[in-house]
């Protein structure tokens, strides 16, 4: 009943942020096809530990595709070959016996490697700090149903808000741009009436912060929306552009 496969893995190993890394080869045998990709790495790590070697470091937490903690580039594809899937939701049934699988960390100047497959994504927090919020102190909110929001607007906002902040958009972008991440947040808040008062300030501040962090520029390659585990659309990038142009040329913010 249970199908198993054998794989050759080439996994990026890098001791610390400053160290030089390289791909190392591992053999994974009798991997159940019902396993998730991370469970497959777990089994390699168990063996490495017993052999007295250093297990492969990788970020992961919820293992159900929502926390955004996990992620690695599998054979050139962030989160692996399946559409709309995080690495933890990628199951080994999508691989064939004898496959060689190359696993690399997210690559971006803004995401330095911490160790092996784990990278530092605090740059994304910094983008949010620049303006990815609605300034409302606890306690000052009006009754929730005061402002009706058309259902389709709420749905569009939700489509954008579904971003899990995993960084796959940056990893997949040929320019390592963070426009889908930034665009999703700007869109989410700009679509809602609550977010409008700060929309101009937010767009200018978040784009400026993003530019300063070393991400590349968007050249509309559309790899991000193809790889996004939550399938967030580049219409959100267009909305960012719109909001930014509006704010830059027509708002009163200098």
């Amino acid at each position, binding site marked *: 009943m249970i199908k198993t496969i054998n794989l050759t893995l080439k996994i990026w190993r890098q001791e610390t942020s400053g160290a030089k890394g390289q791909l190392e080869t591992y053999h994974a045998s009798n991997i159940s096809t019902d396993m998730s990709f991370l469970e497959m790495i777990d089994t390699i790590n168990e063996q490495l530990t017993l052999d007295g070697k250093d297990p492969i470091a990788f970020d992961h937490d919820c*293992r159900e595709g*929502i*926390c955004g903690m996990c992620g690695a580039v599998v054979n050139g594809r962030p989160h692996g070959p399946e559409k709309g899937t995080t690495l933890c939701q990628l199951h080994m049934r999508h691989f064939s016996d004898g496959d060689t699988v190359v696993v690399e960390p997210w690559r971006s100047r803004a995401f330095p490697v911490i160790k092996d497959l784990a990278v530092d994504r605090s740059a994304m927090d910094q983008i*949010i700090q620049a303006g990815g919020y609605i300034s409302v*102190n606890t306690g000052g909110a009006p009754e929730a149903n005061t402002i009706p929001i*058309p259902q389709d607007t709420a749905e569009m906002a939700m489509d954008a808000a579904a971003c899990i902040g995993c960084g796959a958009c940056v990893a997949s972008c040929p320019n390592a741009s963070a426009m889908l991440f930034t665009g999703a947040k700007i869109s989410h808040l700009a679509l809602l009436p*609550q977010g409008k008062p700060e929309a101009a300030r937010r767009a200018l501040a978040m784009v400026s912060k993003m530019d300063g962090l070393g991400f590349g520029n968007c050249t509309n390659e559309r790899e991000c929306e193809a790889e996004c585990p939550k399938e967030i659309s580049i219409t959100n990038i267009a909305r960012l552009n719109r909001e930014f142009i509006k704010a830059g040329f027509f708002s009163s913010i200098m």
Partner: protein
Amino acid sequence: MQLDTKIPGGPLTEKWDRHRFELKLVNPANKRKFDVIVVGTGLAGGSASASLAELGYNVKTFCIQDSPRRAHSIAAQGGINAAKNYKNEGDSIWRLFYDTIKGGDFRAREANVYRLAQVSNNIIDQCVAQGVPFARDYGGLLANRSFGGAQVARTFYARGQTGQQLLLGAYSALMRQVADGQVTLFPRRELLDIVVVNGQARGIVARNLVTGEIETHSAHAVVLSTGGYGNIYFLSTNAMGCNVSAIFKAYKKGAGFANPCFTQIHPTCVPVHGTYQSKLTLMSESLRNDGRVWVPKNPGDKRPPRQIPESERDYYLERKYPSFGNLVPRDVASRNSKHQCDQGKGVGDTGLAVFLDFADAIKCDGKDLIEQKYGNLFSMYEKITAEDPYETPMMIYPAVHYTMGGLYVDYNLMSTIDGLFVLGEANFSDHGANRLGASALMQGLADGYFIIPYTIGGYLAGTPLSEINTSHQAFVDTALIAKERISKLLSVNGNRTVDYYHRKLGLIMWEYCGMTRNDHGLVTARKMIQELREEFWENVIVPGINLNFNQSLERAGRVADFLEFGELMIIDALARKESCGCHFNEAFQTEENEAKRDDDHFKYVATWEFKGDELEPVLHKEQLAFENVELTQRSYK
């Protein structure tokens, strides 16, 4: 240890107002003189950090993940309750209060639960103002759905990602305060110990998970919002990083631990399918709104579900509980699944699963509507199992999900250590012996947004606090103990991995301290845990060094704590000679196999005081007074 609930006097409905008036205030200009440490950035910790910073306190916020946005609150799917009564169904604060008390099988404090119901409406207002994209009706007003344990639809939701959206709301408020410099953020830090000076919590010892450095931080008060300990079972719906260490360390420092055995086993999870499995995935309870739970009538019937005719199916929840049907509370639904499987009626390869069938709902409402409601859950299920729930019924089985137990707190959410506040799942307060669906999000945000901002002020304004910093001897000593423990873990150098012990511990807990318990099993389990713990310290292997990113070392510390804490859960389960909510001792059940409480002897919060590694903990009882609700045998018929 003296338990003092600090519940204010007066009628239930006025207690919170009166208390807020009576609490001392910190002058706005003086708030910046106070430092507050918040550990954890889930709904409770994130909202507390943001709200305290907005008031002007200097907040230092710690989280174990690389970003505060990843706390496990994010995985909550179904929704958040509030007594808005937008549906005109007769909901009210009182009804939400009553449902929650009853759902918790009368093992929670009336005053706390009533306050929770009171602030539930403010939470929705706050979240909407932050831009949380709750589902809306065509007219643009907020939509609701129903959840287990209630007969009104009071649950607000954002698709199947309500926890994520609420957390991102709290996270964005927190990020705004970080940008303002009111919050200093310490991500990738793990709490190793609490520093107590003159009986007051004054700081923490934490490990920088990237560099391995041991850091000390001082403050005037410490807030723990570090979540629950369901991961003790190894397989649970919790994230891999969830652990008991923070609250267990606080327990060892003198904080009472309340009702540790109250563990919620969630009825609708993807069943276990292999020994390599690292976690279980929840399928939102909201699925029970439209899905029908059934098993074949005949044990051992292995036909594919679509070939089993209607007459040979047993929709056992609808049959046994006609008025609540598939929407009975979680503990009842879980035990019934187990009961059916124990009779050999379980389905799937392992026989440890029941069907959750959407065929009737799809026939009635159309596939589109079902997809709109549950699309993301269905695709999640398909990813894991490679089966299409639109075509074939889902298979589900209960899994460990939430822990109602936690550190004992008074009405101010302060533990038995002065200045140590505990919020969210980490405390024991509001859910009694069983939590209703969509109530965890409500409690986390209530604690963080609307309770701690007042009560911490009362503490800081009314308590003499000496000026100390991290050079104080208590910090030096506590850090040294933490370092020694790390060295010890790294030096065992045995033959078994940390996960090996964690899995073994999990199996023991699941078998003997899971959905049903009995005295004999609990005694056996306690002995097994002691032996396993001993073996762990002789034979575990933790590779690598301290001064580096070392995930094995992180896990080793957590599992070492679980190995001690498991015993406390067993001790608590053994001491409670009744069944209530999720604690089901086989010796105490009604004729219909429902939990049978013993209100005369066990109507209390069991709070355990740590006395020493080799000594038995001491039980302190907070007798629960029910002045506003009548204690009844829960019935969902």
